[in-house]
């Protein structure tokens, strides 16, 4: 989220699209309801009528996957009717930038496409530059190559009629949606978007969100109270785990993973440190070398960063087609991996194409599965179509402590890093994850020290004891290391710091190893003043109280800034556009309110400090699948063509040749969407084992329309009821005697849910068209 949960109350129009917030983020509705009490409109755009729709002023039931038709139509509506916030668009977005004359878009494909690699050469999408290396701009925004004009041209095709045809919404519904939301395009109004997996889990996921980000930039809704682009993240620490980059392409703090051609830290830094010649562009990423050196130092405290850079593995490419989730399982299926850690995750259930994933796991030599409860991943070898006698995989299941049994922090969707204390002792026989990691790696280090092996230095020189006290994992010590400290006496910005002192904020990080910081974004979270994440002070100034800002409660990255890009909420003199709900304000000598995006005086730096040129990107020349969102159908779809171009699917989407896709396939005439309910969570490993929740939602189920033609409905119903009937007699996760209660003590209905999930819909590959009539049966 660029904003945060309590900020939703400041909104004048809340669009929930690609999310079922009332069911999946129930407490968000505390703040949605507060906004509604103050007159805000709530719009829910979703294929299904849900508990969210039940509270909305308007529910628009679009066809699954047609989001860009609807959002592109909104962009066109805003541009055609000149409903954008002109001053904001001019000052804070790249609308006036001139794009290369070579840039082209033809029949659904942008210039530079290579069908062999299914990738773009993006060079023609670049901006025209002045001789001094600053992007060329046309302040009148009339030049045919300027971004605003290119957008007008690109979205010419996104008419109400086309949006209606692809989404199934009526033109009246679209007009109501567009006019209600676009009404926030004034300085004193704010509109917000709450989205989740309903947008991300598409072959155009990034562009779904970009389309809305563009809408927010056009309407001046970014950086303001009650606005922003707000991803409702699904797990208690999926924000933190992403910040710490448990992903192939990034290192903690969103630094890039090193590539094979970057043979030194200097070469690596050079590739990823953007250069701007505009003195008014803060170009914050110009500090990249300080963050990379401090990260490397934090892992190998006894080495200098240039040496320890070699300890980091390097990738051949940053392409998702080589290392990302889908490819990972594809390669596992082909025997690429000997071992797999499935730590706090249940991929046998959670990943797309679960059947393929489970079969792939049978190719592993070993699997380490850390979880609270038995689950489909650790037990994959007794799943459907599996014969344990032919499966070689050794499985180690390690039971871990639950959240209330250990100490540490999690970061919520609003980027608040919040400390949790230990309540009960871990259950007998279980261990906190941190202790398991510490002890396991200690053992591996011991083996390498004793026996040697392949390139042992990264392992043996790892300063692993920096995360423990007296041989026990210490969350405080790790949190301090993540924040970072000075590794020797150092003077920065005229201040002298002693060795061992905590770094006060990332502005003090150095690129020479004199500072360490496990994650520059979290630098300022655990300083000499203490553990900021543990703060419980609700003190606010009246200005902060007005918009529900809690600067002294927990801590928020970056540097406790609660609303990102907040310099865009004020004019060039630092005066807020929204007089009734200012986020920051220049009082003549200093900024008041939130922590501003940099303390420079108003009008001296461009507002979007993380962008190289300092502007919000209506035109995004760095995206893999195009600089402007374009309509494509999902890879499996019920239509042969669409009115926007002759390009049916996203030409850059990852695809596996051997996987068949159903496009207008009469055998699969229906589109089915999967979803969660309030009472169960993710694959249900935790919630399926909680009797109070199983009581409320005891089984998996399918909703379908009463209005389906009876033959189709009965066929579908028959197959589904077969699933339901087959479930109770299917396999159940086995447990050794004495390790856990015997099945007889378990609530039987929990088992049936668990079993029903074995036979998941993905494996059956049923596709159900969304109901025309959403009434439940």
């Amino acid at each position, binding site marked *: 989220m660029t904003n945060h949960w309590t900020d939703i109350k400041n909104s004048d129009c809340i669009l929930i699209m690609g999310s079922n917030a009332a069911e999946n*983020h*129930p*407490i968000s509705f505390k703040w949605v309801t507060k906004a509604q009490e103050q007159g805000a409109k709530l719009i829910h755009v979703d294929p299904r009528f849900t508990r969210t729709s039940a509270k909305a002023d308007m529910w628009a039931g679009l066809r699954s996957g047609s989001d860009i038709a609807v959002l592109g139509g909104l962009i066109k509506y805003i541009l055609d009717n000149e409903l954008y916030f002109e001053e904001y668009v001019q000052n804070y977005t790249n609308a006036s930038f001139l794009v290369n004359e070579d840039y082209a878009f033809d029949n659904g494909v942008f210039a530079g496409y290579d069908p062999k690699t299914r990738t773009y050469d993006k060079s023609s999408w670049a901006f025209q530059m002045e001789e001094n290396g600053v992007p060329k701009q046309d302040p009148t925004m009339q030049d045919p190559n300027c971004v605003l004009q290119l957008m007008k041209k690109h979205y010419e095709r996104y008419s109400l009629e086309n949006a209606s045809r692809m989404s199934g919404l009526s033109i009246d519904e679209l007009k109501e949606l567009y006019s209600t939301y676009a009404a926030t395009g004034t300085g004193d109004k704010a509109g917000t978007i709450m989205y989740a997996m309903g947008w991300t889990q598409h072959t155009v996921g990034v562009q779904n969100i970009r389309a809305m980000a563009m809408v927010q930039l056009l309407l001046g809704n970014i950086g303001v109270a009650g606005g922003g682009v707000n991803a409702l*993240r*699904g*797990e*208690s620490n*999926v924000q933190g*785990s*992403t910040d710490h980059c*448990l*992903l192939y392409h990034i290192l*903690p703090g969103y630094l890039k993973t090193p590539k094979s051609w970057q*043979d030194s830290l200097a070469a690596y830094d050079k590739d990823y440190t953007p250069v701007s010649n505009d003195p008014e562009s803060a170009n914050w990423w110009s500090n990249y070398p300080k963050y990379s050196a401090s990260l490397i130092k934090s892992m190998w405290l006894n080495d200098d960063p240039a040496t320890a850079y070699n300890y980091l*593995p390097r990738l051949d490419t940053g392409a998702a087609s080589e*290392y990302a*989730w889908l490819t*990972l399982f594809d*390669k596992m299926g082909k025997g690429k*991996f*000997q*071992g797999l*850690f499935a*730590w706090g*995750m249940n991929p046998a259930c959670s990943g797309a194409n679960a059947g393929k994933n489970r079969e792939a796991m049978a190719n592993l*030599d*070993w699997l380490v599965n850390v979880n*609270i409860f038995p689950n489909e991943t650790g037990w994959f*070898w*007794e799943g459907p179509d599996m014969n344990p*006698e032919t499966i070689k995989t050794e499985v180690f*299941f390690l*039971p871990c402590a639950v*959240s*209330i049994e250990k100490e540490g922090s*999690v970061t*919520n*969707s609003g980027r608040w890093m919040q400390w949790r*204390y230990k*309540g*009960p002792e871990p259950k007998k026989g*279980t261990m906190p*994850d941190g202790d398991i*990691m*510490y*002890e*396991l790696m200690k053992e*591996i280090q011991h083996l390498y020290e004793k026996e040697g092996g392949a390139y042992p230095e*990264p392992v043996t020189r790892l300063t*692993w004891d920096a995360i423990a006290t007296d041989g026990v*994992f210490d969350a405080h010590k790790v949190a301090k290391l993540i924040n970072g400290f000075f590794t020797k006496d150092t003077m920065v910005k005229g201040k002298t710091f002693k060795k061992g002192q905590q770094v006060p904020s990332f502005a003090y990080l150095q690129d020479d190893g004199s500072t360490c910081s496990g994650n520059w974004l979290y630098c300022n979270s655990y300083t000499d003043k203490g553990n900021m994440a543990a703060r*419980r002070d609700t003190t606010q100034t009246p200005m902060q109280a007005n918009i529900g800002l809690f600067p002294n409660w927990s801590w928020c990255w970056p540097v406790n800034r609660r609303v990102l890009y907040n310099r865009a909420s004020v004019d060039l003199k630092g005066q807020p556009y929204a007089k009734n709900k200012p986020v920051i304000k220049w009082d003549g000598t200093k900024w008041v309110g939130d922590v501003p995006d940099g303390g420079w005086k108003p009008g001296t730096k461009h507002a979007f400090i993380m962008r190289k040129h300092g502007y919000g990107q209506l035109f995004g020349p760095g995206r893999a699948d195009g600089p402007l969102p374009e309509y494509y159908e999902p890879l499996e779809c019920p239509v042969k063509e669409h009115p926007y171009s002759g390009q049916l699917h996203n030409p850059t989407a990852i695809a596996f040749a051997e996987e068949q896709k159903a496009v207008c396939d009469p055998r699969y005439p229906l589109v089915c969407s999967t979803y969660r309910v309030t009472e169960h969570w993710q694959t249900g490993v*935790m919630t399926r084992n909680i*009797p*109070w*929740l199983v009581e409320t939602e005891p089984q998996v189920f399918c909703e379908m329309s009463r209005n389906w033609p009876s033959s189709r409905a009965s066929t579908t119903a028959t197959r589904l009821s077969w699933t339901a009937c087959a479930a109770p007699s299917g396999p159940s996760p086995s447990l*050794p005697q*004495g*390790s*856990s209660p015997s099945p007889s003590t378990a609530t039987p209905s929990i088992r049936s849910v668990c079993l029903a999930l074995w036979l998941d819909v993905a494996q059956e590959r049923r596709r159900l068209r969304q109901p025309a009539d959403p009434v439940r049966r």
Partner: protein
Amino acid sequence: MTVNRRRFLKLSATAAAMTAFGGLGCQHTAPAVDRATMLKPEWTKQTTTICCYCAVGCGLIVNTSLKTKKAVNVEGDPDHPVNEGSLCAKGASIYQLAENERRPEGPLYRAPFSKEFKQVSWKWALEQIAHRVKKSRDETFAVKNDKGQTVNRTEGIASLGSAALDNEECWAFQTMLRSLGLVYIEHQARI
């Protein structure tokens, strides 16, 4: 009134003494039981935590029995600015996540081609895993790629997880994996 207040309270307190600290196995008595006693500092310690489910980040208060070291009550933290004490069905059920007899009480091992898990010790499990990791790393470690560029990576081990870990554990986990040379690292944020 047919029962005077003093007698009612006495009855309730007796019931509380029997039930408040018994965990899941306690005999429930819906009517007229004083459970508030269990929140008193002489019986329980109070700690704050954040909900382990979605990323709204609601605050909770956990009361843990001083005697059994087990949770006796978990409810919303009224001081927390995001949820102000409120919780959804999942958050309200966290007590049963901890006090749950379905949690295995130690590591389990499934041997190749076996139809079952057997219970093993932590020491044995971690030593065995360390040996597997080292063997796989040593066998699949690539110093150079096909183009002869230095890559220093372990190609034969992958990792999935986890958004369910604390920040400090996430950082430690990525540090452990990357020092081992892993490049196939993904988690819930991708799916």
